[in-house]
């Protein structure tokens, strides 16, 4: 890092000698002295960039939310339309994360334990929802699940409409949250020591008992993490949902869409209040994931 901009803090010119001579107690407390140069420059740049791009804008949102005031906040949050959107968003996210929890563990198990032609391809395809832009996913799911779509026409005779109803929201969320459970559980299944399963079998456990009582409990921390990640992604999802949901107020309108509506009406206080509520929920999820991982490291000796 040969930058003069970094002034006296750059330790480049000191070459191989440890910079202990000039390091004040203050700096040693913050940054452990090291032969590798460039801490001041890289850390300074990274922190500034992080602050400018992420922290300050998020801080402005929280600041504007305090301007809304407590009564304004409660009023917005308890507005029937907001409540309906919250119910749908959380209900659909909960359903999607739960269904994907079951299928995610199943898929991870298949991918790790079974050998079959096309396994590699399948493994790669799991990440499709990460790679496919949400607008494409939404457009396609709407076409597939509409009344004359490939899948929708199978349900139409039964009187079930999927696209443009709350069910459509669920379908879109199923798609976008699919990879999370698979990708968090998969590496843990790979790590499972088969001897444990052999021990269970020699002690007389049936295969089902081994899986339920020995294998699954060791997957719990990873499953909690995967569940929380899938859920967090689902409640924030916007792009794919608005194509399939129909977006009727009180019926099939999700919270992120409501934020966009309020913003387009220039109702900034309401948009800010709802966004802050969602942000706080997201942070709570993030905290939960970190706590689970810390607990898992202590309890099982690995983080998921």
């Amino acid at each position, binding site marked *: 890092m*040969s930058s003069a901009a970094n002034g006296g803090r750059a330790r*480049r010119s000191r*070459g191989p000698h440890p910079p202990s001579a000039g390091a004040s107690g203050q700096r040693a*407390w*913050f*940054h452990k002295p*090291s*032969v*590798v*140069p*460039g*801490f001041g*420059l*890289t*850390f300074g*740049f*990274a*922190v500034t960039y992080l602050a400018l*791009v*992420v922290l*300050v*804008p998020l801080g*402005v*949102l929280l600041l*504007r939310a305090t301007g809304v005031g407590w009564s304004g906040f409660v009023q917005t949050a308890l507005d029937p339309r907001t409540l309906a959107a919250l119910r749908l968003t959380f209900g659909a996210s909960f359903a999607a994360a739960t269904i994907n929890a079951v*299928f995610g563990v*199943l*898929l991870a198990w*298949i991918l790790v*334990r079974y050998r079959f032609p096309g396994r590699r391809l*399948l493994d790669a*395809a799991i990440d499709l929802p*990460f*790679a*496919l832009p*949400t*607008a*494409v996913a939404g*457009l*396609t799911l709407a*076409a597939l699940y509409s009344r004359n779509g*490939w899948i929708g026409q199978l349900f139409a005779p039964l009187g079930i409409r999927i696209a443009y109803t709350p069910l459509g929201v669920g379908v879109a969320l199923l798609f976008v949250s*699919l*990879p*999370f459970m698979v990708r*968090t559980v998969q590496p843990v299944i790979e790590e499972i020591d088969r001897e444990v*399963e052999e021990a269970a079998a020699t002690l007389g456990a049936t*295969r089902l008992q081994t899986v339920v009582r020995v294998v699954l409990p060791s997957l719990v921390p990873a499953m909690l993490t995967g569940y929380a*990640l899938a859920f*967090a992604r689902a409640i*924030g*999802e*916007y*792009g794919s949902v608005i*194509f399939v949901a129909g977006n009727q107020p009180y019926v099939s309108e999700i919270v*992120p869409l409501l934020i*966009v509506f309020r913003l387009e009406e220039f109702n900034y206080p309401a948009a800010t209040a709802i966004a802050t509520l*969602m942000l706080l929920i*997201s942070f709570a999820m*993030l905290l939960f994931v970190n706590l689970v991982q810390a607990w898992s490291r202590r309890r099982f000796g690995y983080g998921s």
Partner: protein
Amino acid sequence: MAAETDTTAVADRGAAAPAARRPRPVTTETPLTRALLLAVGLAYLALFLFLPLAAVFTEALRDGLDGYLASILEPDTLAAIRMTLLVAALAVPCNVVFGIAAAWAVAKHEFRGRSLFVTLIDLPFSVSPVIAGLVYVLLFGSSGVLGAWLQSHGITVIFALPGIVLATIFVTFPFVARELIPLMQEQGTGDEEAAVSLGASGWQTFRRVTLPNVKWGLLYGVLLCNARAMGEFGAVAVVSGRIRGETNTMPLQVEILSNEFPLSAAFAVASLLALLALLTLALKTFLEWRYGDEMSSSQPGH
């Protein structure tokens, strides 16, 4: 010697297997259960992954190849494609520089609050894209904190390129850093210390020692970052204003066309984005397969 015994052992087992009809290993399910689980898993993936993918291309080509090309060569669509490429070309390098700087600081140095710093880097992944767009509107919009000042200086951020780039940087913020940090941590500081002790400058150390060590991981991060940058919808929709031919990106163009006739035009643009996704997945899988040992085990991304 050891290798030789190993191969004979394997050969013995291979030869004995069909004759002796070994009992089923206790660490696997019955063939019937296995087939059943496999069928259920495959059906689920077919329903939610493969069918949508197939539908994109079928719908896009509904009006034949000529109709497909006509939809893509439509001037507004071409403008959206140019816009998407431009936004990615501006946003991705910013996050690459940040990712490298952050990884260098975190992996090659020890400082207080390091884990907090790493957690904060991941923050944009837990923020809804809509909120990512909203924060910039609140900051730079006409009634935003800096709105009046920007207006008096004739700078437009919202409903213009700078806002779109900023929103894209926000949502793709962690990709490169979270790929490089674990990788550079695994590699430790031994190589860099050796280079420095041999008289290399910091830049030389990075350029000739660190960068070759992490190049595949870096490429992997850039790949994911780029895919998200080109495909981002929510955050960009909030800040772009969706002015046709001007501030529309490809995903926004897909949405506008989806409200019009024929629908195959929307699917034509969508098919380009789907191709990008497939290319990304193919390259990603190739990198994992070929250089997996030179990259950190990847965490679930977004």
